[in-house]
């Protein structure tokens, strides 16, 4: 010890290695066993999730290729004893499209309007808070409860014109009823997404618009909503996914049938919309071994078509997100 105080250490030989030393990055090597097990568990779960997703897609794809016939997409269901005799599920396919269109047609304007009110107006403050709570609550309400509520509303005589009514007794099950309740399912998603979009627009954009004498309404319509379009679109896509994926409301509010049941005497589109019908989800439910039809092959085929729609929506959402990020209108 003392010696080193007295004698200077020998001049160091020029370091032989001049190449960059290999780095000790933080790996898990120094972690305790438990930590390393945890990380391994992370990997295992991550791979399991990937496997499940790939499994679902591949399995349904294989079953779809095996069982889906093009004729099934164009022929309605028929009563028959075997899978070959019972027709296809074209009514279900159209039903899904109708319900999706109508649900979004209701939910999109309402959702955007509510989001605009929340972000741009929001007065009086207590009402704004109550509205936020309401939207959150609607998001948390089981869709089966919404469906039951729908049966009460739409079988009231005042709303008889929206479904089949017979000697004053309103059936209460129709595309109108189902779409209205499904719109409530999509509403919170659209509100949340639109809100996020509006809130990420900096203040000075609004101020610049007010400064040239535009009203708040005009600013919102001409500047804010166009800027928030990607988020509105994302909300719409998410909402659409929920609408076409919902089964409970369809089972309760669209009637227990596998075919369109148009109301006689009504003008063209209304007769179908006022009548009962079915969707792909309902068809899969009924065609599964636990349902009334029990035609697993057709259930697979319909599920495959449904899955394709979901994948398409996911891809669309991804596209919107990516484009907006490229254009710089998405904050993250």
């Amino acid at each position, binding site marked *: 010890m003392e010696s080193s105080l007295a004698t*200077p*250490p020998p001049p160091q030989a020029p370091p032989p290695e001049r190449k960059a*030393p*290999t*780095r*000790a*990055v*933080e790996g898990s090597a*120094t972690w305790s066993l438990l930590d390393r097990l945890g990380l391994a568990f992370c990997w295992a779960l991550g791979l399991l999730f990937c496997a499940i997703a790939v499994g679902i897609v591949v399995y349904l794809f294989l079953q779809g290729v095996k069982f889906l016939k093009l004729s099934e997409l164009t022929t309605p269901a028929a009563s028959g004893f075997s899978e070959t005799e019972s027709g296809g599920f074209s009514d279900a396919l159209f039903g899904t499209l109708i319900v999706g269109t109508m649900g979004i047609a209701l939910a999109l304007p309402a959702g955007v309007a509510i989001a605009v009110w929340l972000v741009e107006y929001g007065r009086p403050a207590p009402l704004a808070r109550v509205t936020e709570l309401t939207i959150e609550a609607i998001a948390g309400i089981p869709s089966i409860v919404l469906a039951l509520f729908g049966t009460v509303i739409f079988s009231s005589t005042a709303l008889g014109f929206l479904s089949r009514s017979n000697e004053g007794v309103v059936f209460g099950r129709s595309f109108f009823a189902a779409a209205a309740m499904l719109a409530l399912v999509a509403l919170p998603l659209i509100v949340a997404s639109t809100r996020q979009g509006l809130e990420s627009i900096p203040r000075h954009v609004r101020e610049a618009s007010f400064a040239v004498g535009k009203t708040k309404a005009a600013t919102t319509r001409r500047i804010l909503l166009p800027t928030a379009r990607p988020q509105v679109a994302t909300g719409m896509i998410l909402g659409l996914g929920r609408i076409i994926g919902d089964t409970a409301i369809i089972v309760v509010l669209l009637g227990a049938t596998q075919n369109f049941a148009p109301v006689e005497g009504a003008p063209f589109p209304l007769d179908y919309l006022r009548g009962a019908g079915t969707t792909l989800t309902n068809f899969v439910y009924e065609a599964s071994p636990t349902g009334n039809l029990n035609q697993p092959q057709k259930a697979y085929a319909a599920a495959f078509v449904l899955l394709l729609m979901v994948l398409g929506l996911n891809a669309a959402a991804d596209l919107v997100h990516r484009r907006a990020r490229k254009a710089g209108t998405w904050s993250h």
Partner: protein
Amino acid sequence: MEPLTAPPPIRRLDPQDPTPAAEAPATATSFVAARRSIAAPQFSIRRMEVDDVSVHYGAKEAVKRVSLPIRQGEVLALIGPSGCGKTTLLRSLNRLTELTAAAKLTGSIRLDDVDIRLIEPTLLRRRVTMVFQQPNPFPMSVFDNIAYVLREQGSRRTKKKVLAPQVHSALQRAGLFEEVKDNLDHPALKLSGGQQQRLCIARALAAEPEVLLLDEPCSALDPQSTAVIEDLIVKLRDDVAVVIVTHNLQQAYRIADHVAFMYLGDLVEYNSATRLFNTPAQARTREYVSGAFG
């Protein structure tokens, strides 16, 4: 390869040092601030060696080919105008720059003659701890903030009672104990800014580091707490190599033994505190030091 163990407990003066810290005060004093009457360092050991270090953030070079020694037994102060790369240099000393994806470091830094890139970051950061410019106490109680460090370094399940003495002494050393001793369960984020900063210092001390990096620890403190921290730093210098970034030149003069002046990423001058402030070798240093005071 070189062992990753703690350095041998040898305390030797650095014979290569061209600028010994202990020296007679300069006679021609242009500097008006009173130097704190601290004794000259008893010894100094070279613990860290910054050798030709540059740090790039993308295309921007935040630190340009800086070389300096860091010694136990004395306090090193980094001064310089805002944005000159002090924080960046400090962060590269315990490899925190690696957390910034854009940052790229060249050159080498050695701790006890071992390149820090060879030391596993976690182990390195236990030996070289840092207190940040912005106080960042964890969202827990005051007690847990310090107990967290102790628990993570020792047994994770240690009881509160067992840890209490260590926690108290860390708080005491940072001059915070008297203020918080009655409510150690108080949320740390509800402390004042200065108290939070002292809590962060206490936390760093609880880790028992070999090198302590302080990034403007006193910027949010009142003069009295500042004095407590300064005393602490001076007391610590025998056990820990201390590097402190400060914008307060008087503070640098009061507590530092060596001062490094940086400007736009360059290390303009590295010198003993008395020399740097009283007879700066570089014109830039003189401008900065006198401009700030005069």
